[in-house]
């Protein structure tokens, strides 16, 4: 299969990617502030992961989006509530106009509260929000790639609280059992969910041992250190094609990059007021121009 896509999306340096991440974090807090609704905490925590994925790791074609994505690496956001970071990264990488970010969660917008294909937003290939479904979808898409002889990879992202859903573990069995080794799943391991710490709400136990026992190739990664993220992706990619799906357990801080949002679950799903927005933006340099 021939592909016009480069080996990576862009040959970006760590500094360049960090610079993009700062702008994406600005977008996130501004979007959530703009509609006084949405989920900034997990979005900020996963910013480095998603920026690295879309601006360095994945081979993808933002200008010519197709649902099938033949010949492209695919990403599925399973924890759909962190839509602000997803939308910002999609817009900043060219899937749709950056200016459209201002419509987030507003009437007649393509940027629904949770991502959907229903409104035709380029870059989105599945609806998500009801948790636990994206790993199955990613496995199916990875199976389709194998059937098509397409060597590209499939990436999925999940919350750690999301792992309390039973379907995740059905998919964990299937991913290993069917040797879906063109899939790199990642868990946003921030230890927090809406009602509090994961360990208090419903402890997940030894996650590393669990995924390993299910037959996955497991690695851990610091998710808010861009150099570590890039290295982690390189390591994860090197483990594909070896008979096992790959799981990255990614340590992050909910609210990462905005000091008053870090350290608790409080900012999982609330919006900053005007003063809080100003405080947050002071911490996040505007690098690409606000929408």
């Amino acid at each position: 299969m021939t592909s016009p896509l480069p080996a990576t999306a862009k040959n970006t340096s760590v500094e360049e990617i960090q610079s993009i991440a700062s702008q994406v974090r600005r977008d996130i807090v501004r979007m959530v502030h703009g509609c006084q609704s949405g989920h900034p905490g997990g979005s900020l925590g996963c910013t480095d992961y998603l920026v690295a994925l879309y601006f360095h790791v994945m081979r993808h074609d933002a200008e010519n989006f197709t649902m099938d994505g033949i010949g492209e690496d695919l990403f599925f956001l399973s924890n759909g509530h962190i839509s602000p970071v997803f939308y910002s990264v999609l817009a900043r990488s060219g899937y749709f106009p950056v200016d459209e970010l201002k419509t987030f969660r507003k009437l007649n917008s393509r940027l629904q509260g949770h991502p959907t294909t229903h409104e035709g937003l380029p870059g989105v290939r599945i609806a998500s929000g009801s948790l636990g479904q994206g790993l199955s979808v990613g496995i199916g898409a990875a199976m389709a790639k194998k059937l098509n002889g397409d060597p590209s990879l499939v990436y999925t992202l999940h919350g750690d609280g999301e792992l309390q859903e039973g379907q995740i573990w059905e998919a964990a069995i299937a991913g290993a059992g069917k040797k879906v080794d063109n899939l790199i799943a990642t868990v946003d391991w921030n230890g927090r969910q809406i009602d509090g710490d994961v360990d208090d709400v419903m402890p997940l136990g030894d996650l590393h041992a669990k995924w390993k026992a299910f037959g996955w190739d497991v690695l851990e990664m610091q998710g808010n250190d861009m150099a570590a993220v890039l290295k982690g992706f390189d390591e994860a990619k090197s483990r594909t094609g070896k008979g096992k799906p790959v799981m990255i357990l990614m340590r992050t801080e909910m609210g990462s990059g905005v000091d008053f949002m870090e350290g608790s679950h409080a900012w999982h799903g609330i919006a900053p007021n005007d003063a809080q927005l100003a405080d947050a933006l002071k911490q996040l340099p505007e690098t690409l121009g606000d929408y």
Partner: protein
Amino acid sequence: MHRPYGSGSLQPSNHQQPITNMTTYPVLDKKDTRSGFGEGLLEIGRSDDRVVAFCADLTGSLKMDAFAKEFPERFIQAGISEANMMGMAAGLTIGGKIPYTGTFANFSTGRVYDQIRQSIAYSGKNVKICASHAGLTLGEDGATHQILEDIGLMKMLPGMTVIVPCDHNQTKQATIAIADHEGPVYLRFGRPKWPVFIAPDMPFEIGKAQLLSEGTDVSIFACGHLVWKALQAMEELEKAGISAEVINIHTIKPLDNAAVLASARKTGCVVTCEEHQRNGGLGDSIAQLLARELPTPMEYVAVNDSFGESGTPEQLLTKYGLDTPDVVAAVKRVLKRK
């Protein structure tokens, strides 16, 4: 307005051609509709290599063995994990495949409703949800497996096409036809050996009702196994001088509004027959249409807010009021309301 009972003569209507001029349908054979699915799947698998089949540990029950044997690379055994199966099927469409999922109707709908709603229907994925062992005629396994709510669950989902074929041959035709329909489909069929009366070469068109027998006194709209009961009732009624029109509504959504309205306008009263709860089923769809467009006296042959139980299919259809005498009685009730 009361009309004299008709003679049962079969004049072609102006909206549809009857598929036969015989008042009695010969039983060609007795076969299960699930075997029609298995045969259809194999045939469409041979002609369209985009077709991929999933099964949740019921390959024999769904009659998917032949497909699995001939196309092992396109058959995915999902194990007993239906939620994951639905998600994988949604994912497989991304890449241009046409996945058919196979399991019992209960596990194809109620168990996985949110997966279907979000990952398939709302996401507009081209998944064919193929559901066997629907309704009371599952028989001895009892109410845990006898789903009677699935048509309602599925038809409420925006964009979902809902098809309930009436016999083996039609199930085979429908299984083949849905591959060419872009979008999610729910295809419902069953377990028991049942009279086969639809000719193998009879055209099947999604969304197009089939006029099986013309009549003038009452319109009987039926789906699935109960189409045969409706035809038997038609013959009983003819002996009593009542001319019943029997129309097979194999596609419940989108409903063939024109065919339903034309028949109801002609006969002036309606009976619906289905192996499903009265709430949410075929009759419910027809009642909505008639209430909006053409208020018409109507009776239902359906399960009335009850779970099923163990028994043979025929015993259960009798006990729960879905047998030929129940259709006849419903016709006689509705005729009094004209």
